């Protein structure tokens, strides 16, 4: 896919995304800052920002194998935690001052158990997520945030006031608004940015201080506004699925002539499509955002009709020709979600391609062939 955009900021985003411990993290650490690792979209990273700690969302970027973690995980486990834990056992995350693991899925939650027994880290917390999306769950999540604040204050000798939390919410909301502005540019016939580039932008936002991120996003927006749009695409695609943080995966989809114009993935719109309320109790606002307001993944029970509607709305807003449903092997949530998506999209007359994958990109040839066939099918639509 040809893109004519010349942007130093975009190149910087790619550099950040291409490594796990990027220069900004190292600089933060060198200046005496604390870094806490975490997983998934449902951890309230605003709390770390409010504590003056850098929240670093963990990925397996750069991992080349699972030889160490295989002693703890098995072959029926998702390759994402296996790679991440392997990196941890290789001491590639020794820079962390703490780790917060949510019970987001059967594979990720066991990182907590294995880390606890195999590695020494000053602060290791399990964030207890509810499954449902009703009022008692908002209250449960709110209590969890209070507990997390208390523990962070005690461990790191910081004070997380309501004012600091509100300021962090404002800062993170600005991230969200700026990202949404970029997505607005993708709605046009010739968007200025590819799906591969976009994923690099989003991933970077989970790995650098959020104020610096806002500045970079503003620069990028300026660059994009002046850029020529992409014209040579055969079809407009939406990518739907779980943890996808590798720009190269998107590049392969796009090399075949599809242009990814929107998504619902863990490093995508589910992170920023809605905002945390800046009014009233910040704990309540964060809890309500996480449980009821932001687009959810299949682990949120009872929210499937809302997710299906979100998908259809995205397809309409971004003029999507076809949807690619990616899924990490052994993910029980997404296999069933895509089973339902398949039915819903059939009913809506939207072509849908389901793709299973490993966390570290493999089988590129097969992926190309399947996407090519899908695009041909779209062309004949």
């Amino acid at each position: 896919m040809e893109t004519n955009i010349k942007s130093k900021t975009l190149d910087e985003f790619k550099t950040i995304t291409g490594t796990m411990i990027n220069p900004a993290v190292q600089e933060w650490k060198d200046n005496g800052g604390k870094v806490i690792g975490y997983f998934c979209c449902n951890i309230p990273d605003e709390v770390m920002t409010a504590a003056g700690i850098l929240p670093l969302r963990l990925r397996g970027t750069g991992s080349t194998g699972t030889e160490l973690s295989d002693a703890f995980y098995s072959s029926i486990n998702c390759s994402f935690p296996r790679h991440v834990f392997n990196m941890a056992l290789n001491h590639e995350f020794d820079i962390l001052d703490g780790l917060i693991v949510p019970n987001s899925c059967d594979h990720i939650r066991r990182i907590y158990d294995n880390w606890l027994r195999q590695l020494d880290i000053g602060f290791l917390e399990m964030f207890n997520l509810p499954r449902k999306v009703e009022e008692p769950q908002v209250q449960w999540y709110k209590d969890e945030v209070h507990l997390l604040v208390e523990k962070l204050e005690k461990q790191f000798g910081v004070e997380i006031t309501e004012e600091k939390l509100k300021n962090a919410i404002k800062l993170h909301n600005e991230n969200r608004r700026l990202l949404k502005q970029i997505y607005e540019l993708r709605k046009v016939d010739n968007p200025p940015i590819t799906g591969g580039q976009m994923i690099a932008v989003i991933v970077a936002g989970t790995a650098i201080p959020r104020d610096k991120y806002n500045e970079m996003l503003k620069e990028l927006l300026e660059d994009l506004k002046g850029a020529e749009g992409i014209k040579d695409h055969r079809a407009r695609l939406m990518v739907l699925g779980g943890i996808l943080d590798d720009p190269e995966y998107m590049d392969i989809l796009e090399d075949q002539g599809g242009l990814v114009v929107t998504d619902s993935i863990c490093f995508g719109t589910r992170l920023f499509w809605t905002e945390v309320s800046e009014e009233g109790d910040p704990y309540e606002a964060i809890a309500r955002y996480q449980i009821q307001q932001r687009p959810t993944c299949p682990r949120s029970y009872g929210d499937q009709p809302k997710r299906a509607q979100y998908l259809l709305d995205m397809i309409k807003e971004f003029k999507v020709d076809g949807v690619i449903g990616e899924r990490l092997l052994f993910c029980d949530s997404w296999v069933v979600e895509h089973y339902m998506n398949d039915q819903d999209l059939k009913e809506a007359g939207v072509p849908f391609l389901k793709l299973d994958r490993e966390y570290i990109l493999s089988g590129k040839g097969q992926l190309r062939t399947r996407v090519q066939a899908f695009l041909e099918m779209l062309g004949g639509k």
Partner: protein
Amino acid sequence: MDNTDLSTLGRKEVLEKSLTRYRKERDWFQMFLDALSMMPELSEEDILQQKMLTILLESKQTVLDCAENNKPFIAGYFCNAPEVFHAMDLPWYMLMETPFLAASAPYLADDIKGTEEIGLGSDLCTAIRLPIYYIETGQMPIPSAVLGLIYPCDGAPMLHQVMMHNKAWKDVPVYAADPPYTSDERAIDYFADELKRMAEFLQKHTGHSLDMKRLAQVCEDGNKTYSKWQEYNELRRAVPCPHGWSIGGPQAFAVSQCFVAGDPKCTDWFEQLVKCAEIRVNAGEGIPGVKERIRYFWFDIMPYGWIFELMPWLEEEWGAILTMDMFGNYPYTLIDTSSEEKIWKGLAKRNLIDAPMIRQARGTAENFSNDIRRIVKDYKIDCVIWPGHMGHKDGSAAGGIMRQTCRELDVPFLQIGLDLFDRAYTNPDEVKDKISKFFTSMGLG
């Protein structure tokens, strides 16, 4: 594969189709009961089986009667506090029943193939795939309301989301209690509130009411049942073990939680179970015809899809006795019925923390290691077998922790890798081979 388009069927046809399989299963068990009744003399163990079949058939017949005559009944699970709906006199069936019926479900292999054909893939837990398939192909009785289960794994909440998505089921109200990940007082209080909301839901959608005095009585009856279970498990500590895989644990679990809960019928069955075990323990005898050489802890459900190909072989070939398994383990706390609040908290604890599989898989991995520590010591276990069912992904991600625990206890540990329901996943001969090599290399048997 059954691929009838349900939307082309009328209401009555949909009902008939949904009951066909359920009736077959009832008839199968009726045949066993009839065969037992025709025997000239019944042993104590035959009487035990007879009592269990009677309980099971009563449950199935009541559900069928409700479905056929438009009376309220529900679908639920063992860990949805069945004491509550028993106290409400509300008939129910367990949503995952069929995969656990072993030889009574000869169609299982075809159904598993069907799950793949409808697009559920092959790495989703078979115990989740099968009920989805039955719902999607109209082969499960459509109840008045559903009590969903959204723990202990990722598959369970998905099953219920498919149910709500299915056109034939979409008007069936569903409630699922939200499970906290922790097991402290805060978690128990929260879950108790979820169970109270469950009772309100049932009253609203079935017209059956809950009388707290009746619930207290059911819990007290349940306490008698659980006390007997504890007594029975103490008898299983004996060397040789009075019973192996074929009597005890899974049946005890089914009788106390799957078909009925908190009923004198359950206690009566357990009294018979204790009687059977006592006869052998007092005589210093184990399983007839088997010389006990290995006492193993099978840390999961049994391989119901091909149980008769593996479990008898372990006894006959190796003298290996299933001394304890995940579902036969007794960790249940009796319920204090002195106040309404204590009843709800007791039910919350039992269904969140005590119930098998939920107990281990819902929360942190220490639940796996703690059970191994306790059971290995209490039951003089020679080795621990974690079957590594393809659906139990959180457990397999705790395999290293279980291995380490066993190493500390100096007891051999085997992780196999199989499908408890699908014999094609890992061929039974391959499983036998792995077990044989393990026993040999560990100097067991």
